[in-house]
């Protein structure tokens, strides 16, 4: 396959960025999108051009690093995949592909396609943990019965990889889907009850401080989320928040 790539290049956080055009031949449909980018970078370096900076780590959909806004969608046209799991067979020979970083005020660009998502880390630090007993007399986890539907829902919420696609797809740059997944995975389990009240209040507070926008129920996040996190989590978080406010 031959492709034309229009890629956002930006030297650093303060520099002005712009789209640059590159062409690439010999793309195999079996390549993942990141492997195609590897080939491009190899080609650029041979030509003495600075390679395109992009984030990646696990390359199997579990770390959430590979943020790219491809043809107007976070992680590109395929559903329920991250960029590293997107394959070139989803494109056609001769296609022009637009590649940009995830755009949101709380995710400043570091270079080219790499953005700083440490805002998510700070939200996690505000409440994404549970208290456990490390005295050596730890209770066997299986000794606490958990309703199957709750276990399943907590598991589904815990599938969130913190990629930020929900923020990038949202016209308000809201982080509600992410935060609600993190709140839900604990709210649904007995282990999460100790910090339940503080957790939701602190995480929402941090989210607001980071400058993420409000949720207006557009639902774009749910469509673009590579892990299929459901909007139901946002409703759950709102309930948790309300009851925390009332009781707190």
């Amino acid at each position, binding site marked *: 396959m031959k492709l034309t790539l229009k890629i956002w290049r930006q030297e650093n956080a303060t520099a002005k960025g712009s789209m640059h055009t590159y062409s690439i031949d010999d793309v195999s449909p079996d390549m993942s999108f*990141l492997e195609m980018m590897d080939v491009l970078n190899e080609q650029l370096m041979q030509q003495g051009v600075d*390679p395109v900076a992009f984030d990646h780590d696990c390359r199997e959909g579990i770390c959430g690093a590979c943020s790219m806004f491809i043809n107007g969608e976070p992680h590109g046209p395929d559903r329920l995949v991250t960029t590293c799991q997107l394959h070139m067979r989803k494109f056609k020979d001769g296609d022009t592909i637009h590649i940009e970083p995830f755009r949101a005020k709380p995710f400043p660009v570091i270079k080219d396609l790499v953005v700083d998502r440490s805002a998510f880390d700070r939200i996690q630090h505000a409440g994404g943990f549970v208290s456990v007993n490390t005295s050596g007399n730890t209770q066997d986890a299986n000794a606490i019965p958990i309703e199957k539907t709750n276990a399943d829902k907590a598991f589904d919420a815990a599938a969130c990889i913190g990629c930020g696609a929900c923020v990038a797809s949202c016209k308000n740059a809201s982080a509600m889907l992410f935060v609600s997944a993190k709140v839900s995975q604990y709210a649904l389990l007995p282990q999460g009850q100790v910090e339940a009240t503080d957790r939701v209040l602190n995480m929402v507070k941090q989210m607001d401080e980071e400058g993420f926008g409000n949720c207006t129920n557009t639902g774009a996040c749910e469509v673009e989320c590579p892990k299929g996190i459901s909007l139901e989590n946002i409703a759950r978080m709102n309930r948790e928040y309300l009851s925390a406010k009332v009781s707190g």
Partner: protein
Amino acid sequence: MGSNVTAAWKIHRQGAYFANPCFTQIHPTCIPVSGDHQSKLTLMSESLRNDGRIWVPKKKEDAVAIREGKLKPIDLAEEDRDYYLERRYPAFGNLVPRDVASRAAKERCDEGYGVNTTGEAVFLDFADAIIRYGKEKAHIKGLDENDLSLVQKLGKEIIKAKYGNLFQMYEKIVDQNPYETPMMIYPAVHYTMGGIWVDYNLMTTIPGCFAIGEANFSDHGANRLGASALMQGLADGYFVLPYTIGDYLADDIRTGPISTNLPEFEQAEQRVQAQIDAFMSNKGTKTVDYFHRKLGKIIWNKCGMSRNATGLNEAIQEVKALREEFYKDVFVPGTSDSFNEPLAKALRVADFLELGELFAKDALERAESCGGHFREESQTPEGEALRDDANFTFVSAWEYKGEPSEAKLHKEPLNYENIELKTRSYK
């Protein structure tokens, strides 16, 4: 660039012994190689072997026809299939340990029975499991167990509930539907059981430097089980370290903060800066990836699933030569004071180029087969791994002496007090 050996290698260079590098786990259920572009042979969960049956064609001509796309695997009659794990290991079948399953796949493919275009893949087939589960379900529900399409529908639902995410992952990568046609898998490197040598308190040979979790060697022997990395992280972090590190630090309770204006800090900074400067001013012609890939090929081919003295000696020489070429001819673009991925990678690959040689050196030293380490010279007449307990019942702990070839071996004998060393049979 993410790298989970860097920290371990850095402290090894500062005096922490590195234990058992040659014990490498090869995972039997990975996505096969499809070309040179692949950055990763994604690991499919081992849980798939609970229900999947592994096979290749019995006849070479069928394997060739499948490779060329002239024959579909589902059209191959039952009697023309070789369920080689069930055949060789009737007691454990498809559930033999990873090293055994991996070598058996390699053996079949080396003999010419591989089923994808590269000839390096075997089938992992769920057709029987689908029927079995479907019949059970139909039976429970009082439906017709002989209605094949109903049984298949019910069976697929159960397989989906168990492995849906893995099947989806496979389909995205390979573009084939594993509910309809068997998966293709092949072994790939997964994990090294070796790591930084630690004592029972998880302290390395550098006093006060502790290593926990996957970075150390402590909980695994020559092999490991699924999820043991998680187990080790929890055991080390929850149960061991909270006691031992406190005990160590207790003596220093009045020491107070340590100034960073000490020569040690300065030397460390200078060392890193010098390495960065060397990379940035090198006028090389080849990218970091070129060396990384080349190193991977040497290690996979000569220090991979099965090893022998000739290959290992070659690997040692080749890695050494590659390391020299790397320092002479690597090209790192950009600047050192901005975000620079190729520079970060060069710093990591520099370490891999040393570690790789130590891998091969340790594998050469251990002239027995044991767990993840298979030496062709040490096998039974049936081709099974043959341990040599009289000579090799020890942990190899390597001390850094500059060049990896100079590394000094310390042997920690393994004394079994409560159990007797045995060889397990999977037959």
